């Protein structure tokens, strides 16, 4: 089978058709004048503007900024979330001391910290990174704790009767057993990282897709705004797909994932 037919097989043809149909309807409604808002452009106008932005390199520059910050923030958040999650999940005293603080912090929506971060760090990439790390560390942390807590007690007994050291038990039993839960946390964290990157760029850091979106609004260029909105959407899809692919490659041996067995 050629790769072209393989791609075709995996593509949801009906789904793509529906999408094209909706775009066509949008275009049509604007052309016949049924949809008549001052600042609602037709898809064709958006596409034309997107092409210009691509050609000038403007879109790519903004896209790369947002992509870089999102990934960097997500990686930092993941390291912190997994590390802290292991400590809190495996060491009871740590959990008892910190649980109340964590429950309180968790109840605060990360977006409500945006003005605060802005005040502390100013209009900078630091504001953006801080917000991303803070927001996306939560799901990683919570899922890591959950993952190591729910490791079946039988596995701990297995480790003991086979005389595995604490380090071996952690690396060979606890972590792999918690991995499905951690992966869920990482995936949620990645989506949140992009959300927070865009929010921070909208109000704080003067670069990236979010900032371009605001500039386009101030310049009254709705086609450009839509072009950036679609770009952000596509970036989200691409990040998610890349994440899934990497998970599929690295965890082939865990098929089916331990958590999905029963």
């Amino acid at each position: 089978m050629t790769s072209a037919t393989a791609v075709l097989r995996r593509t949801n043809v009906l789904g793509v058709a529906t999408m094209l149909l909706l775009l066509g309807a949008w275009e049509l409604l604007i052309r016949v004048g049924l949809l008549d808002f001052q600042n609602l452009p037709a898809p064709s106008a958006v596409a034309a503007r997107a092409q210009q932005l691509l050609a000038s390199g403007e879109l790519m520059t903004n896209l790369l900024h947002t992509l870089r910050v999102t990934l960097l923030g997500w990686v930092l958040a993941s390291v912190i979330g997994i590390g802290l999650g292991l400590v809190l999940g495996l060491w009871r005293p740590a959990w008892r001391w910190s649980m109340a603080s964590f429950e309180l912090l968790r109840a605060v929506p990360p977006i409500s910290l945006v003005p605060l971060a802005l005040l502390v760090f100013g209009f900078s990439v630091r504001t953006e990174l801080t917000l991303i790390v803070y927001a996306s560390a939560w799901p990683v942390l919570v899922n890591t704790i959950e993952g190591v807590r729910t490791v079946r007690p039988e596995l701990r007994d297995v480790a003991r009767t086979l005389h595995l050291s604490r380090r071996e038990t952690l690396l060979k039993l606890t972590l792999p057993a918690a991995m499905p839960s951690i992966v869920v946390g990482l995936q949620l964290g990645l989506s949140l990282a992009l959300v927070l990157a865009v929010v921070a760029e909208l109000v704080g850091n003067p670069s990236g897709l979010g900032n371009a979106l605001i500039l386009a609004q101030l310049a009254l260029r709705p086609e450009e705004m839509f072009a950036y909105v679609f770009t952000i959407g596509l970036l989200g899809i691409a990040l998610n797909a890349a994440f899934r692919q990497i998970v599929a490659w690295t965890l082939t041996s865990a098929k089916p994932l331990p958590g999905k067995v029963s």
Partner: protein
Amino acid sequence: MTVERSADVSSAALGTQPRSVACQCRNASVDLGSRAGPRRILGDINFDLHEGEFVAILGRSGSGKTTLLRVLGGLVDPTPESVVTFHGRPVAGPPQDVVFVFQNYAASLLPWRTVHNNVALGLEGKVPVAVKRARISESLATVGLEARAADYPWQLSGGMQQRVQLARSLAMRPRGLLMDEPFGSLDAMTKASLQDQLQQVHQHTGATIAFVTHDIDEAVFLSDRILVLDGSPATIAHEIPVELPRPRDQLATKELPEFLRLRRQVYDAIVETGD
């Protein structure tokens, strides 16, 4: 049968040549926490396991059989005044050269490791790679699973998975095996074939085996001695020596008058203690 014989009497009653003691249990009691405070599960358990002996621990469900086995395996701590030793050393944590085989094979195998790597788990970093490989293939051959080494546990039937766990234990070259209802959730045919396999393993390795079960036939068929647990807290209510010739056969042995007599005796012991 009398209640609570001392170890000396029991080995005399066994009528065999005195063998050295592998495991000693003196005044062993266990308290487990409950909502109403600690509750005594086992009270004052006394017995010995001799080197190479196959002892079945029998009792109704909830009688504390598994708890007793976990005490021997160092997975549950008995009360401070209890004396439990394995190979002459007091049990504090899982003893050396003793491996516990769990009832729930599915939860005891690592689903992300192949059969081969599951068996390797206890050997990694402890023996040279060549020795490790040799022991893995040897123990997989013992349970007849060489051909499935590259498969994952979920690709195997329940009986095969339990054989993987047995192979993993055998690869450690244990002198003692503690088996907690290992065949409890298997169908009759699979159970019989695993009993035969375990009998061969016992013969070849000479390991001391303590085997918890609620299946009377299984206890009589496999063991040299049966301990019946009963009461609350549980004690050893009966101790029944099994002197059936070995090797034992699923059909011939089970047709022996002595087998039927023992089966009856054990059954009566359990029913009597229950009322």
